[in-house]
C-alpha cells in the first residue's frame, strides 16, 4: 500500500472496513421477523387448536351422521348432528350478502376511481371506510329492528319471520361493501393511465373504458377483494346471530329464521358447554368445517384469478 499523494479529506475514513458494528440494523431485522412470524404462528396455532377436539368429536359422532343427515341440534336431547342446515344457512346468507355487496361495491369503486374528481374521492373514500368501522352489533340491531319491519311492511307476501336470513344477509352485504369497494378501487387506481388513454383515443366513452378496460385489467385485485368479502361474510357472527336467529331448520327460504355456522358457534360458545363435553367438541368441529370452507373458497378463487387475470406490464 503506497501512501496517498494528498492527505485524505477531513472526516473520510482511513479504511473501507466498517468502523463500528451496526447493532440497530440487526435489532430492526429481528423485530420485523418476529412481527411476520406472529401472524403465521397464530394461524398455525388456530389449526392446532381446532384439530384435536375435532378428531375427538368424530370419534363420538360418525362422519355419516355429520354429513349425512339434515337435523341439527347438538344442544338438544337427544342431540342431532346433521350439519347441513347450518351449512345451507351460511351459504345462503353469504350469497345474499355477495349479491348486495359486489354490484354496489364495484359501482362505488368505478365511481371513485374513474368518475369522481380528486376532491370528491378524498371525501368519499374515508366515509366509505368508516362504514367498515361500524360495529357489526349495530348492523345486527338495525337489521332486526328496522330492516325486517320495513320489509314486512312493504312485502307482506314474503312471509318474513321476526328473525330471518334475508335481513341478516342484506346487512352482512352492507357490512362488506367497503371491503369490495375500497380494495377494488385500489386495484383500479393501479391500472396504468396509458390503458385508459388508449381506450379513449379509440372513441370509447368513460363507461366503456371502465367496464371493458379498467375492470378487466384490475380483475385479479377485484377478485381478491371479493374473496376477502366472502370470507368475512361467511364468518360474520353478530349480525346473523341477532337478525338471523338460532333456529336450525333445513330450509332454503330466506324468509325463515336460520342459524349459520358462526351463529351456532357463538350460541354454543356463550352457553354452558363444559370443556370436553360433546357440545364443546361440536363447536370445534363446526369451526374446522368453516375454516376448511373458507380456505377452499380462497383456493378456488386464487386459481380463477390465475386463469383469467389480465397482466399489464
Amino acid at each position, binding site marked *: 500500500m503506497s501512501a496517498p499523494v494528498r492527505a485524505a479529506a477531513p472526516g473520510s475514513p482511513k479504511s473501507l472496513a466498517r468502523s463500528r458494528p451496526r447493532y440497530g440494523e440487526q435489532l430492526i431485522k429481528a423485530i420485523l421477523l418476529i412481527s411476520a412470524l406472529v401472524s403465521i404462528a397464530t394461524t398455525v396455532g388456530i389449526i392446532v387448536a381446532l384439530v384435536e377436539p375435532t378428531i375427538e368429536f368424530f370419534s363420538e359422532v360418525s362422519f355419516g351422521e355429520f354429513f349425512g343427515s339434515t337435523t341439527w341440534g347438538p344442544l338438544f336431547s337427544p342431540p342431532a348432528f346433521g350439519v347441513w342446515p347450518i351449512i345451507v344457512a351460511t351459504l345462503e346468507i353469504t350469497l345474499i350478502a355477495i349479491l348486495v355487496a359486489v354490484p354496489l361495491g364495484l359501482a362505488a369503486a368505478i365511481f371513485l376511481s374513474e368518475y369522481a*374528481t*380528486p376532491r370528491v374521492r378524498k371525501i368519499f373514500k374515508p366515509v366509505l371506510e368508516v362504514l367498515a368501522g361500524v360495529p357489526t352489533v349495530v348492523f345486527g340491531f338495525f337489521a332486526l329492528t328496522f330492516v325486517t319491519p320495513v320489509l314486512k311492511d312493504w312485502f307482506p307476501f314474503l312471509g318474513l319471520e321476526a328473525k330471518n336470513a334475508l335481513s341478516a344477509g342484506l346487512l352482512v352485504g352492507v357490512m362488506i361493501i367497503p371491503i369490495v369497494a375500497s380494495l377494488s378501487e385500489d386495484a383500479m387506481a393501479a391500472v*396504468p393511465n*396509458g*390503458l385508459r*388513454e*388508449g*381506450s*379513449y*383515443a*379509440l*372513441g*370509447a*366513452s368513460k363507461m*366503456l373504458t371502465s367496464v*371493458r*378496460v379498467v375492470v*378487466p*385489467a384490475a380483475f385479479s385485485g377485484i377478485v381478491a377483494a371479493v374473496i376477502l368479502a366472502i370470507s368475512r361474510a361467511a364468518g360474520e357472527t353478530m349480525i346473523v346471530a341477532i337478525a338471523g336467529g338460532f333456529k336450525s331448520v333445513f330450509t332454503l327460504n330466506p324468509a325463515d329464521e336460520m342459524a349459520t355456522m358462526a351463529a351456532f358457534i357463538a350460541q354454543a360458545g356463550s352457553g354452558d358447554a363444559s370443556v370436553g363435553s360433546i357440545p364443546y367438541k361440536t363447536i370445534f368441529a363446526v369451526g374446522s368445517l368453516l375454516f376448511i370452507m373458507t380456505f377452499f373458497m380462497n383456493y378456488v378463487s386464487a386459481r380463477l384469478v390465475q386463469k383469467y387475470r*389480465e*397482466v*399489464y*406490464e
Partner: protein
Amino acid sequence: MTSQPNVTIRGPEVPNTPGSLDPVFTVEDLSVFYGDYEAVRNVDMLIGRREITAMIGPSGCGKSTVLRCFNRMNDLIPGAHIKGKILYHDENLYGDHVDPIEVRRRIGMVFQKPNPFPKAIYDNVAYGPRVNGIKRNMDDLVEEALTKAALWDEVKDKLKQNALSLSGGQQQRLCIARAIAVKPEVILMDEPCSALDPIATTKIEDLMQELRQEYTILIVTHNMQQAARVSDRTAFFTADVDSAGVRHGRLVEFDQTTRIFTKPSDKRTEDYITGRFG
C-alpha cells in the same frame, strides 16, 4: 451558412402554404392552458391531407400538448382548455356541438409507450370497432388492420395470445393496427418510437410511409433525423421564458421539411437542428 439572402423569412404567424396543401386541420392562434398556466401560445399551422407533419423541439416546448389538442385528449385533464381555433375541415373542433368521442373516432392516436390492452391480440384490434358498434365481419376487419400495420404475418397464428407477449416494436404496430381498425382519417403519433430499438423504429418509419397513402399523420418526435426522414412538413417548437420567469411553448417555424433542415429561416431552428442547443 447562417442566412441565405434569397430565403423568404417566414414567421410562425404566416405558415408556408403552397397551393398543393389541402388542409385537414387549420390551427388559428391556438393557446393551450392548464388551469391558469399558458403552456403553449399562439400557434398557427396547417396540416395537409395525406401528408406527414412532424413536430420537433426541445423538451417542454409544448409539442405533445399541441398534438393532444387535435383529438381533444387534453379534455381528460382537469383544468385544461384552449383559446383560439382548430378547424377540422371546416368544423370547429372545439365547437359546442362537437362530441369529443366522435372526434377521437375519426382522429386516432398512438402513444409514446406502447399501450396494448392486456387482452388477446385479436381483441385489441377489435376493441375500437366493438365500442363503436361496428357490426361488420370482425375477422376481416382485424386482418385488414393488422395487414395495414405490417403485423399480420407475424401474429396470424397467435391471434388469441395476449398482446403483452409481443415485443415492444410489435406492440407499437399493434397499437397502430388498433387505431386503424376504427378507420380514422388522421393518426396522431406521440413519439411512437422513443421506447423502441433502431430496427423496430425503422419498421415503424417504413410503415408510416405506407400509411401516408391513406392517412394524414402528425408525429411528435425528439429525434430530428426521424423528422427529416419521414415527414413532409416540420414544425419547430421551442419554449420562451416570459418576464415573470414562466415558460411558454411557442411555434418558431413551420415549413417544408427540406427547407427546415437545409435553409431554416429562424436562427433558433438552425441552432436546434445543428445541435447547438436542446
